[in-house]
């Protein structure tokens, strides 16, 4: 938060050891804590939601089923019936890991683990490696033919092949930076406007009146962040689906 007359907008992304020296030895910070919380929330949502096993579902069960059907539809429609079903749990895990991370990170006193490039890049590189392995599994060495577009003049190959390879390799980078940058930008803005509110409120009556503006902005920003959090999780999941579709049948 604000300290003195400066705004520490990036301090919220700092990692601190938890559970004392024991946690420090295990390199435990608030990031793994919130990853575990997010996963537990998603699992609890599914377990408690599906507990009644009702034919006519209640609210929570209906929500659990809708989320299941939504991600399943996403995977099956993009990748295909058979392979989409095989990849569905992975897509579901990715989507809800990111979504829960983004949303829980919006709560006060919490932490957004998707705002770390190391985390998002780890996820993106996992998707990238799975895509390459899937491509090799289903297409064999024919996979490498895609780096030379069909019908293009052979003379252009010295230019085309590096471009294609570069665009392929840039996928995990763009995938990870998109999520990371969106989350960082949103949280920096929230922090800056929150700091403005506090600083202006410290300036007396006029400041109190003026402080309303950043507060209102922050409320609107929170709504925007709810949209961004969902959208980024969706984008990550759908791009993974598209990459996997390319990997299974090209």
């Amino acid at each position, binding site marked *: 938060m*604000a300290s003195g*007359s*400066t*705004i*520490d*907008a*990036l*301090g919220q*992304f*700092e*990692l*601190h*050891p938890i559970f004392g020296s024991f946690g420090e030895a*295990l*390199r*435990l*910070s608030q*990031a*793994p804590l919130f*990853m*575990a919380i997010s*996963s537990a929330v*998603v*699992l609890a949502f*599914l*377990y408690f939601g*599906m507990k009644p*096993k*009702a*034919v006519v579902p209640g609210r929570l*069960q209906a929500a*659990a*089923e809708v989320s*299941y*059907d939504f991600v399943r539809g996403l995977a099956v429609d993009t990748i295909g019936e058979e392979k989409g079903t095989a990849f*569905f*749990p*992975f897509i*579901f*895990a990715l989507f809800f*890991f990111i979504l829960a991370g983004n949303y829980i990170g919006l709560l006060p006193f919490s932490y957004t*683990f998707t*705002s*770390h*490039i*190391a*985390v998002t890049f*780890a*996820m993106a590189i996992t998707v990238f490696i799975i895509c390459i392995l899937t491509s090799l599994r289903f297409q064999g060495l024919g996979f490498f033919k895609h780096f030379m577009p069909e019908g293009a003049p052979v003379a252009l190959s010295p230019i085309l092949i590096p471009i294609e390879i570069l665009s392929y390799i840039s996928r995990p980078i763009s995938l990870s930076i998109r999520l*990371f940058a969106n989350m*960082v930008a949103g949280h920096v803005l929230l922090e*800056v406007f929150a700091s*403005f509110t506090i*600083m*202006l409120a410290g*300036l*007396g*009556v*006029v*400041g109190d009146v003026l402080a309303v503006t950043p507060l209102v902005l922050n409320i609107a920003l929170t709504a925007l962040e709810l949209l961004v959090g969902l959208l980024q999780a969706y984008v990550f999941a759908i791009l993974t689906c598209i990459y996997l579709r390319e990997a299974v049948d090209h």
Partner: protein
Amino acid sequence: MRLTPRFLLSAAAPLAALPGRAVAEGMPQLHFKDPLLQGQVVWGALIFIIFYLLLSRSALPRVADVIKARETRIQSDLDLARRARKDADQAQKELCEAREKASEDAKATIQSIRETTREAIRVQAEETAARLEAEIKSAESQIALSRNNALSNINEIASSTAMTLAERLIGTADEKVIAAAVEQAHAAGAEHVS
């Protein structure tokens, strides 16, 4: 506090301070040497794998089971309803057929009764007609007999009447002449009649 240049400066200070601080300390996300930053990737991978395994082995199959059970249930209910409808259709068809058959039977019965009755009436009428015919015939023969009797007696009566008349008128009567005259008159009369 009034809106002084000093106030504005202090309000604008954070904006100016922000980039400077960010550059000075850098983003914590880029401190790749931080053991906590490295640790979170390892922990994250571990948590994600556990999360994935729990989802794919336990949580998602539960949802799938419930959805599948519902689909099976709906399908079986639909099948049941379809079968019931088929049975009902069949029963209705049978009922219609039975009704048609009963109606035809009834028509046939009515027809046969009508025919029997008509036949009976006809027979009765014929019998009556035959009886009447016989009665008419016997009556006619009786009439003819009576008439013949009467006709056979007429000459005698006429002769005796003519004898009596002739005796009264002329005092004498030749029986033979009168009989011939009566015979002639009778013949003439019969000729006239026919």
